[in-house]
């Protein structure tokens, strides 16, 4: 694992996610935007070994917490939990085909969004209305954009898509 490259890449994606640049491609009616950090989470969960997947999941979750401005810790926990689960699942079921990857992104986005929402409630934070529609919209959009973003991530991290199997 190229950790320095990983740190730079995650920082760049976190800034991109936090900036309003993604609003250009936001879709109505809820201005749904793809969650690029979540796509990265799935990418590293299925393209690195389990130990590295655990570290990357929590690191990306932390980046999501400080960049998106949500309840601190909620994304770290939800990303870490589901990233680790996905990494272990990948040891049993290989997620290689594009539509499998899209489905994995969709499910992970929905689960992390829901858990982060409950953790925010637990912390006493008020949440936005239509939260589940928002989570669903983001999950769908991320699932569509994800496999394309995987190509960019593979190129930047110098990871060949078919190099890794089940670990």
């Amino acid at each position, binding site marked *: 694992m190229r950790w320095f490259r990983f740190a730079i890449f995650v920082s760049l994606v976190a800034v991109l996610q936090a900036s309003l*640049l993604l609003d250009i491609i936001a879709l109505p009616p809820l201005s749904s935007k793809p969650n690029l950090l979540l796509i990265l989470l799935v990418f590293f969960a299925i393209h690195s070994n389990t130990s590295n997947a655990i570290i990357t999941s929590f690191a990306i979750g932390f980046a999501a917490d400080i960049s998106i401005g949500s309840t601190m810790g909620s994304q770290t926990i939800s990303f870490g939990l589901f990233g680790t689960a996905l990494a272990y699942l990948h040891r049993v079921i290989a997620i290689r085909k594009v539509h499998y990857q899209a489905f994995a992104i969709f499910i992970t986005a929905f689960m992390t969004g829901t858990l982060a929402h409950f953790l925010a409630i637990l912390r006493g934070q008020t949440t936005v209305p239509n939260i589940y529609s928002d989570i669903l919209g983001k999950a769908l959009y991320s699932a569509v954009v994800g496999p394309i973003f995987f190509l960019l991530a593979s190129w930047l991290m110098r990871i060949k898509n078919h190099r890794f199997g089940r670990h």
Partner: protein
Amino acid sequence: MARKLFRSHSPKRDNTSLGAISRPMLFTWFMLTGLILLFAPQNLTNDLQFTFARIFRWPLTIGKNFSLYARTRQPASDATFDRKSQYENHITNLQEQLRLKQEEIIELSRLRVRHPALEKAGFIMADVIRYSINETRSELTINRGQNDGLVKGLFVLGDNSIIGKISEVSPRTARLKLFTDPASRIAVRIGNLNIDRLMQGGGKDEAKIRLLPTKYKVRVGDKVLAGKKPGFLDASMIIGVVARCERDDRNPSMWDITVKPVCDIERLNSITVIIMNPQN
């Protein structure tokens, strides 16, 4: 068998370990970190988010400009429209400020009519920006301070009655200690009795007057007036009303009088500070 086969086909580089730390241990440590972040005080964790925003301010701003450009879809050189919009906003703000000042003048004129004794006094209206009212503390923070001529000890009016005194002053804000605050002591007179006594705050929206002999007749509903204090209050003004009057348990020859405010302090949005000797 399948597991053996699976392990034999796993790439070598994936068997890397992180020293003596096992995966469950790694997961547990990270999870604990996440929980600490979740339950840490928000002012500490907010600093992390603010630091991120401060470090990446420049790229985040670029994104904002692009986004606004894409959303508005306006011609690039629409400076005239921007300037016009700025002037219109400025005029709207000025009109609103003028309206508020006119309301303030009307209210202050009414105060002078209601309290002729305070004819030479200056009044400063202020908005309440924070309420700290509980059993141990009864204070309000207002949006006027030293820059507006406020000093410690000035009396404050709320709904035409004295509600407390200025206790702390900063250049732009001031803290007002209500007469119900346990640390507050104000000289008062009850109804028509020509005798001054010290009223001490009792918390819980009430104050106490003690050391008044039972030979004086005090009834529930009697008005309580804040005593004159040269330089701060040149005329007695109503501060509360007697809510309860019982013999003192420790000294039955004295009254234990409970006084309640005559206005709902927690609903006050604005108050008036009395300056008896205004400089201007």
